[in-house]
């Protein structure tokens, strides 16, 4: 069962996204459009999801290790910094432009949607660009102070999101 966990987790995640309607940009944009009739559904999605996850994270934290016996890979970064805010702003704009965020866009690949495919491709390109810029900034020839400010933390390297 543990071996199949990642695939089944992805499947369950995707089923939740499909059932909740989040895979359709019209539903998401209905939530993000405050100037028109407002569809609060997305709040209910996050509410339901966070409530269940809250219980699980408390249990996991108390156990201190995973069921497969390994360590927890939880983020340890605490600082609310420019990268967090700046990155969230950029992501939010992209989300508002299309009505898709990473999870639903990937599920929409399963619907064989060409526009979703283009979006996912460009997401991957944006991620690759980020990786390229951080790698360049940690190159030996770069100024050390500058590099240490922008290189990914060990936590981010380990966790990746």
């Amino acid at each position, binding site marked *: 069962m543990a071996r199949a966990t990642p695939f089944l987790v992805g499947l369950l995640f995707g089923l939740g*996204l499909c059932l909740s309607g989040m895979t359709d940009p019209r539903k998401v944009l209905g939530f993000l459009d405050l100037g028109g009739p407002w569809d609060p559904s997305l709040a209910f999605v996050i509410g339901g*999801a966070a409530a269940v*996850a809250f219980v699980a994270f408390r249990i996991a934290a108390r156990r201190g290790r995973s069921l497969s016996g390994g360590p927890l890979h939880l983020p340890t970064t605490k600082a609310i910094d420019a990268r967090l805010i700046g990155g969230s702003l950029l992501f939010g704009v992209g989300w508002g432009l*299309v009505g898709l965020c990473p999870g639903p866009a990937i599920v929409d690949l399963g619907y064989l949607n060409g526009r979703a495919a283009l*979006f996912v491709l460009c997401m991957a390109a944006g991620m690759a660009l980020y990786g390229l810029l951080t790698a360049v900034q940690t190159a030996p020839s770069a100024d050390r102070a500058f590099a240490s400010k922008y290189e990914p933390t060990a936590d981010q390297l380990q966790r*990746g999101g």
Partner: protein
Amino acid sequence: MTIDWTHFTPGSAFAGGLLIGLAAAWLVLQSGHVLGASGLLGGLVPPRAGDWPWRAEALLGLIAAPIVARPAFHTHPPTIAAGWMTLIIGGLLAGFGTRLANGCTSGHGVCGLARLSPRSFAATATFMAAGFATVFLIRHVF
């Protein structure tokens, strides 16, 4: 501001959320990882030895979901209205931004809030505000 009662679906939205929460619960309990879609994809770009396989498998699960969802929940394929230019810009922003912020709606908005993480509260408030502002500008200003 009025509620869009014709499109508001509290039941299926909440039920879908429960499934998402169950997925996150399963992952953190079984393997200790936070469930975040941007991390799943981002962890493949570039891939890291010993780490990329589980992320790739989870992505496959996401992609397989419609096959089960259509008969199970009678879901419909999406309608994506954005043109190719918007898709390209939006995709690049979403990809770059989620890496910079180290998370998205699932990583920060679900798991981060569930963990009561101040960082995730800040991230979620920010991308929500940016999303609201972007849609408002596009639909009601420009």
